[in-house]
């Protein structure tokens, strides 16, 4: 039977990455993700893996690119300002169709911001986070167990679709401790990495990992092909959790840490007889549009709860094609909304309907 251990979110995710076969971790110190690198620096030597502290986040993501090009399951983690620096590498990873897992334990911004938890990098994560036409798959865990589980999902999806999977968490999820069942899921059947640079051994034509196209027609075609893959992902990989949505009249929505607060507020509203429910996106790209559009046909209004000035709310409005009003409820800068604040937003909206 799988062990249950009390662990910090950052460490649970790091251990799961090792269990998922990650043997190459490249990091750079930044709060509140330091536990990931510290754990990897201890763990990697025990499994003959590579832990390397890079000279910058830029170097770290390019080391990931090199290791991934060479066929490895490679990972880096950082927090908001560091992830911004990685955006160049994220774009090259996309252009080269390379798998990678990149973790963002978000903190308050912009600028140096604060070291407290935040969800203000939603745009950076879901709108590419780098130049050019591309997406990353963005997973948004909301518990230490999910931090653990999503590492397996991240590596499998990255290899399956040959792209970056971004684990978008925050300081709350990274630092809090919860019991984790250390289940190791069955690995997905994945295609062989026959494109990887390994040395030809004089036996095959050389493999080239590249994102440069001299002919714009060729680049356009490559981008169109890539977006066909994205369309499959949007159809098949969007994940969400619905709570008390069957008879809901108000749909509260939140991802990650703020979804825990939102769920409490939904329970409090139910106690007062208000029919609130919760949709929690587990992938924020692809955004679970279908679930929202379907809910829009039944509920009177939405309340979007975020630890930002309001970023995911744009995806909610797009998903429901602005059919119903969407209110925003949030704190920013490293502040966390409390259930009473969310409850107040629900009650205000409930009265509107």
């Amino acid at each position: 039977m799988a062990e249950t251990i009390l662990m910090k979110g950052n460490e649970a995710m790091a251990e799961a990455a090792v269990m998922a076969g990650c043997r190459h971790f490249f990091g750079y110190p930044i709060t509140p993700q330091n536990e990931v690198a510290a754990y990897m620096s201890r763990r990697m030597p025990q499994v003959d893996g590579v832990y390397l502290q890079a000279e910058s986040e830029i170097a770290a993501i390019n080391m990931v690119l090199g290791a991934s090009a060479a066929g490895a399951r490679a990972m880096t983690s950082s927090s908001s300002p560091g992830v911004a620096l990685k955006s160049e590498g994220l774009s090259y990873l996309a252009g080269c169709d390379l798998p990678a897992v990149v973790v963002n334990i978000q903190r308050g911004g912009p600028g140096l911001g604060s070291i407290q938890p935040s969800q203000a990098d939603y745009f950076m994560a879901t709108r590419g986070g780098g130049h050019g036409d591309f997406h990353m798959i963005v997973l948004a865990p909301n518990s230490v167990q999910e931090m653990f589980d999503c590492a397996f999902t991240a590596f499998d999806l990255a290899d399956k679709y040959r792209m970056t999977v971004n684990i978008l968490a925050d300081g709350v999820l990274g630092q809090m401790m919860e019991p984790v069942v250390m289940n190791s899921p069955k690995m997905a059947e994945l295609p062989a990495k026959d494109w990887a640079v390994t040395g030809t051994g004089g036996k095959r034509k050389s493999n080239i990992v590249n994102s440069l196209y001299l002919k714009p027609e060729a680049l356009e075609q490559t981008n169109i092909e890539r977006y066909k893959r994205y369309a499959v992902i949007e159809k098949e990989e969007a994940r969400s959790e619905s709570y008390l949505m069957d008879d809901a009249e108000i749909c509260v929505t939140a991802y990650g840490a703020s979804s825990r607060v939102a769920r409490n507020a939904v329970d409090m509203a139910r106690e007062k007889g208000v029919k609130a429910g919760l949709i929690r996106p587990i992938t924020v790209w692809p955004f679970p549009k279908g679930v929202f559009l379907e809910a829009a046909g039944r509920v009177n209004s939405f309340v979007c709860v975020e630890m930002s000035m309001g970023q995911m709310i744009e995806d909610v409005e797009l998903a429901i094609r602005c059919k119903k009003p969407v209110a925003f409820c949030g704190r920013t800068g490293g502040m966390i909304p409390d259930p009473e604040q969310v409850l107040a937003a629900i009650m205000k909206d409930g009265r509107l309907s």
Partner: protein
Amino acid sequence: MKTIFERTPALSDAVTHYCPGCTHGIVHRLVAEALDELDLTGRTIGVAPVGCAVMAYNYFECDMVQAAHGRAPAVATGVKRTHPGSIVFTYQGDGDLAAIGTAETVHAAARGENITVIFINNAIYGMTGGQMAPTTMPAQVTQTSPYGRDVSKAGYPLRVSEMLATVDGARYIERVAVNSAANVKKAKAAIKKAFANQAAGNGFTLVEVLSTCPTNWGLDPVKALDWLKDNMMPYYPLGVYKDGAAPEAGGEA
């Protein structure tokens, strides 16, 4: 019929896009010959830069990765750490290596990363049309130093080999030139030595090659070779800057 000269197998038969008289092509051939003569080509993985050599991935018959501007040593690190038994080299210009990629270069050396860097110093940004580089000579006219490089405002050229020779992790650092047949021979010997060091697991090796950019220097190919000799060589003396192991951990006993 007797074959007296042929393409070395590590060099592909693609027509390069380099300008007539550019010495990039010579250095490509030296790298390919060194790999073939040491019988390393089959386990070699190259990393191409951003610069005129960006399409080096088409010119070498080995596995290749094209890196972002300046990041080749970081990419090479990821490759090498995945396949420690492979031979990994980067091929980088002076803008790529000594401006935007300075940190990646210095730290790959500091880590003693077991890779080989082929560093093309042509005192200019070639690909973008001839802007001032960190290695541009004092008073040299470029597109962005139209009155000549004024060191009081634009600073001084960077001597990369000298700088890296102070780094303990660097194993072998040599500066060569490809302006004459004799120097081309020495350049090849240096490149071979660098790869041999890597194959022996000795750590970071870099060969700086003084090279020409006739197009952006505004000189014909022969005059460009002379300009290299008269202007670059005095400032960038040829020679071995480092050849030996890093000091023992813990320092002097």
